[in-house]
């Protein structure tokens, strides 16, 4: 019963989030100077004739008052119609269907790799003494302070140009995925690692860990039975955020590695003032976030029963 209520609650919350995102994007984009009718007619600088502009405005309902346009768009969205992209002249839904999978794969692999690297570093530093702690902490800080675009270029120069091990751009195969995934994962691993280490440290010095030690448990036992679980809580809470940040990172990574995907679509849609496409990408990102959040909520409840009590 409680679970059903919780689910309903989450579902309502998700609908609210999607509505709010649509609204924010709609008005946000309309605040950007520039005429959507031009965006439809081949973008800025196209010397579209007055007739063409008028025709497009009528076709797309751009001559209606803004509020009417807003409700028109909401109405279409309710029917599951994302509309046609202004710049590409094809249904947004078909563009998203093409562009979403590559980004999902990229972000998911990067998230997994980031978790593995972060956990490994944090555990290593907990178990192997001061030197390991300084090194891993330094690595984490450096990792978190490296911009994706720089890391990507360095990786290409080293692994593609100099060593020739991996292709510098998307090949459609698995080998082309390695560098982009690593580029996305390392800065995130640095960030996650620092947060996890802090929680691990707190857990390791918490009364129950101490009492476990007094009971004669080994350090390894304390780490795996208590600290790891506690370290995981903020890590899990951050995963939703991390997923969003990966989509932001995908903008840069997909551009440099010439991969198709949501990130590049987003950048292009904003520069082209392509409202339907921006809305579509934002909705997909929001939906992905809602799903990841629900999953991480469940994981958090399992890891720490106290959270469930609220």
């Amino acid at each position, binding site marked *: 019963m409680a679970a059903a209520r919780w689910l309903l609650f989450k579902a309502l*919350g998700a609908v*609210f*989030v999607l509505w*709010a*995102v649509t609204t*924010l*994007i709609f008005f*946000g*984009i309309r*605040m*950007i100077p520039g005429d959507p009718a031009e965006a439809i007619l081949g973008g800025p600088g196209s010397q579209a004739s007055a007739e063409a502009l008028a025709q497009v405005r009528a076709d797309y309902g751009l001559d209606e008052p803004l509020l009417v346009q807003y409700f028109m768009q909401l109405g279409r969205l309710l029917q599951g119609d994302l509309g046609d992209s202004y710049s590409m002249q094809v249904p947004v839904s078909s563009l998203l269907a093409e562009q979403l999978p590559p980004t999902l794969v990229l972000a998911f692999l990067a998230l997994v790799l980031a978790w593995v690297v972060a956990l490994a570093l944090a555990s290593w*530093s*907990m178990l192997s*003494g*001061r030197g390991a*702690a*300084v090194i891993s902490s*330094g690595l984490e*800080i*450096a990792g*978190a*302070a*490296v*911009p*994706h*675009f*720089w890391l990507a*270029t360095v990786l290409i*120069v080293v692994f593609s140009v100099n060593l020739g091990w991996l292709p510098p751009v998307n090949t459609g195969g698995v080998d082309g995925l390695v560098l982009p995934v690593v580029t996305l994962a390392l800065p995130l691993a640095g*960030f996650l690692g*620092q*947060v996890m280490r802090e929680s*691990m*440290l707190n857990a390791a*010095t918490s009364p129950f860990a*101490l009492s476990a*030690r007094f009971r004669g448990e080994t350090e390894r036992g304390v780490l795996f039975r208590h600290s790891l679980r506690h370290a995981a809580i*903020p890590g899990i*809470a*951050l995963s*939703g*955020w991390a997923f*969003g940040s990966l*989509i*932001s990172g995908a*903008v*840069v990574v997909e551009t440099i590695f010439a991969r198709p995907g949501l990130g590049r679509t*987003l950048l292009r849609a*904003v520069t082209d003032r392509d409202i339907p496409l*921006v809305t579509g990408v*934002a909705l997909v*990102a*929001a939906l992905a*976030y*809602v799903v990841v*959040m629900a999953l991480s909520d469940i994981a958090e409840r399992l890891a720490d029963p*106290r*959270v469930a*009590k*609220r």
Partner: protein
Amino acid sequence: MTLLDSTRSRIRNRGAHNGNRRVGAVEFIAAAVALFLLAAALFPSWLAPYQPLAINPADAFQAPSPDHWFGTDESGRDIYSRVIFGARESLLIGAAATAIGVGLALVLGALAGLGGRLLDFGVGRLLEVLFALPGLLLALVFIAIAGPGVVTTTVAVGLSTAPGYARIIRGQIIQVRSSAMVEAAVVLGRSRAQVLRRHLLPNALAPVFVIGTLGVGQAVVWAASLSFLGLGEPPPAAEWGAMLSAGRTYLTTAWWMTFFPGLFIVLTAAASTVLGRGLQRRAVS
């Protein structure tokens, strides 16, 4: 020192931390770096041998040498001088953006964590909305509306990082609120304000320190990414992110153009993290 204390400090030591009040070598170095950065930000002309914008095309792409410690860029500008002069702008962007982000987050997080159910619900939904939008999308749209510049970049970065901070703060407050310590205090009849001041805030703020100090470096990195997308500081600003993105073009032929600004971003992040943790330990104990 009690047995418990000694055990704690033993374990803490393993986690690269020194005893609570002693200043360790790592912290000392971090403080020195921070002082140097601060000096660079406040009095750049004391430290830099050249003007940051003085071009000299004949001297372009010089590798590091006694004349130009960090080499020169594509216009023959001295990179060491640019990095020094860039400290003010970069640190300001980093600090201001983090302050905006953390400040917003504190208000939202505290409202959610301490207010009634309804307030928590409202703030929670608002955060979710902000969260659900990829940070870069927020930044891109904001910059497109307001036009590029220092202030826009700073606000854009602050806005897009705020939800992350807020969520952590809210989670932390909830966790602390339901802890045995706070429950005990409530049972003992402490007032709301007392509980808030003595227990909730110090404990809830602890991770914020770490994340906030990390955030300075992160914010500089964000600004750099915006530069990469052509939306950062307008040239010829010596801001580190802009330098990093401008130098990327010449990565294979002039590594020093990106290495040194990048090094300073990492140094800033490292120094502020180490110091932040030190401060936090003192605040908690």
